[in-house]
């Protein structure tokens, strides 16, 4: 057997499990929602890894790009009956263009660390207000996506399963992109910038250009997801510009392990499903208790695994692949 195949084997098994999972849960609609939520967050966090993990720019604007994607795709569908398949791409492009406008001055003036986090967080709040006031597309009431039982053109399904598979495809593309970037010039440049910007620059790294690329790729993926998000929930509302989602995504990125390709995926699998299950099981007895438990888990991880739980995965992976190579 070729060593390349053995290296890929664990990934193939994961893929088969991911493909089969919905069928194991057909009997319970709740688990399907849970599953879809988990991989949605996994995709958001994996995209975040490119800017937040590799480039070290602590981005808190996921909600901004998600909202832009949702509003682009949703408005195109509601107003002009344009299919969300085109809307998603348009949403991604608009989010990326917006990221360019924001990133250009921020990276020009080398806004980093907590200042970058605050600026990007402010972006979400500003956009929320703008869309609240912008009556033509937003406004304070929900705008509903036309309802269909089962329409591929309108991306409307009665079941969660098609959404799950769609997001799974985006997740796989995002992970592949992560992997590809990580092992090429852009990835090395981003990691170097994250570690020490001035040292990187005098080694020929174009800080602004590299970070802009990273930010735009991340914004594009999140924008595309926004389009799916709108159809999944059946409406668009300015509250989609959510600081909570933004924060959640960055937490998953950090807990997963900054700059580790599969870390955010692992973090989302454990944390989001854990949180939702807690909510379902103890939420009934004592409201918000699940948040307390969730917070304690986060603190414990931060204390004992500051490099993220993804590093455990990385170690296991290294062992596995070296053994595969030895055989």
């Amino acid at each position: 057997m070729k060593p390349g195949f053995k290296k890929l084997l664990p990934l193939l098994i994961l893929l088969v499990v991911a493909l089969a999972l919905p069928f194991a849960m057909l009997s319970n609609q709740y688990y399907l929602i849970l599953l879809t939520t988990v991989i949605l967050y996994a995709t958001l966090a994996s995209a975040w890894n490119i800017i937040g993990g590799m480039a070290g720019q602590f981005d808190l604007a996921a909600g901004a790009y998600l909202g832009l994607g949702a509003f682009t795709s949703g408005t195109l569908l509601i107003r002009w009956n344009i299919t969300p398949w085109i809307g998603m791409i348009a949403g991604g492009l608009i989010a990326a263009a917006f990221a360019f406008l924001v990133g250009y001055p921020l990276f020009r003036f080398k806004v980093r660390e907590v200042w970058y986090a605050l600026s990007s967080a402010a972006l979400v709040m500003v956009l929320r207000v703008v869309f609240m006031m912008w009556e033509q597309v937003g406004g304070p009431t929900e705008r509903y996506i036309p309802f269909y039982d089962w329409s591929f053109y309108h991306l409307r399904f009665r079941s969660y399963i098609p959404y799950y598979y769609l997001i799974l495809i985006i997740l796989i593309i995002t992970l592949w992109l992560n992997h590809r970037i990580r092992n090429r010039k852009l990835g090395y440049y981003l990691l170097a910038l994250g570690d020490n910007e001035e040292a990187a620059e005098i080694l020929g790294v174009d800080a602004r250009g590299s970070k802009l690329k990273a930010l735009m790729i991340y914004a594009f993926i999140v924008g595309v997801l926004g389009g799916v998000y709108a159809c999944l929930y059946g409406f668009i509302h300015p509250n989609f510009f959510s600081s909570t989602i933004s924060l959640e995504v960055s937490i998953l990125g950090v807990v997963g392990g900054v700059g580790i390709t599969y870390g955010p995926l692992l973090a989302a699998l454990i944390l989001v499903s854990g949180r939702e299950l807690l909510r379902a099981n103890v939420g009934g007895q004592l409201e918000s208790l699940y948040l307390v438990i969730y917070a304690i888990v986060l603190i414990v991880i931060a204390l004992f695994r500051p490099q993220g739980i993804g590093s455990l995965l990385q170690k296991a992976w290294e062992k596995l692949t070296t053994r595969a190579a030895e055989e």
Partner: protein
Amino acid sequence: MQDQPLLSVQHLTKSFGSLIAVNDVSFAIHRDEVLGLIGPNGAGKTTLFNSVTGLYKPDKGEVRFKDHNITGIEPYRICKLGMSRTFQVSRAFPTMTVAEAVRVGAYNRHEEREVEEQVRRMLTFFQLEKFASKKCEDLGLALLRRVEIARAVATEPELLLLDESAAGLNATELGELMDMLKSLRTDQDITLCIVEHVMKMVMGICDRIVVLDYGELIAEGNPEQISSNERVIEAYLGKRALQ
């Protein structure tokens, strides 16, 4: 015919608030020489380095590298033109391995297909093969310095500026560093400019020395001239040393 200098600095001034860190300094570096830049602590050596390599924008003056006016342009463009540097306080890439750190520099002149080869060449040249997969944060000072020089040389510069590379090294390590720098000059054809406090190194490898004091250029000459220059002795040891 007089050779055109590789780097020429004309009337460079850089101040921070009311503090003039570098005041109207002019000097040149010629191809294939090793220029030493010395001066007491706080004389403005590092500020001068930072202004030349694009980290600071100078207030006044001009920096020319080869045929280009590089005053105040971005560091990565300067690197593309063929100048790189190391830092006084080590600026390693802590989360990267040695090979990865060198690879960042290697991308400057090599595309994806050849970059691996360039990294291997650099690791061999700097005898870092053994440490290739070690994280930079796990390395000691001497190795870190070597990695920093390796990644800068990987960009294939014509001019390399070294900011206090010898500080804190023991005698053996210092010897190794000096041998390495000499071979950089002979094997890789790199012109060097070093900021240094360790006199053994300055006197050992420099062809020419410029001396800064309080941001001003006070002397220029070969090592013998400098070591007997009155203003230099005064700056380093005080006026009474001359009496």
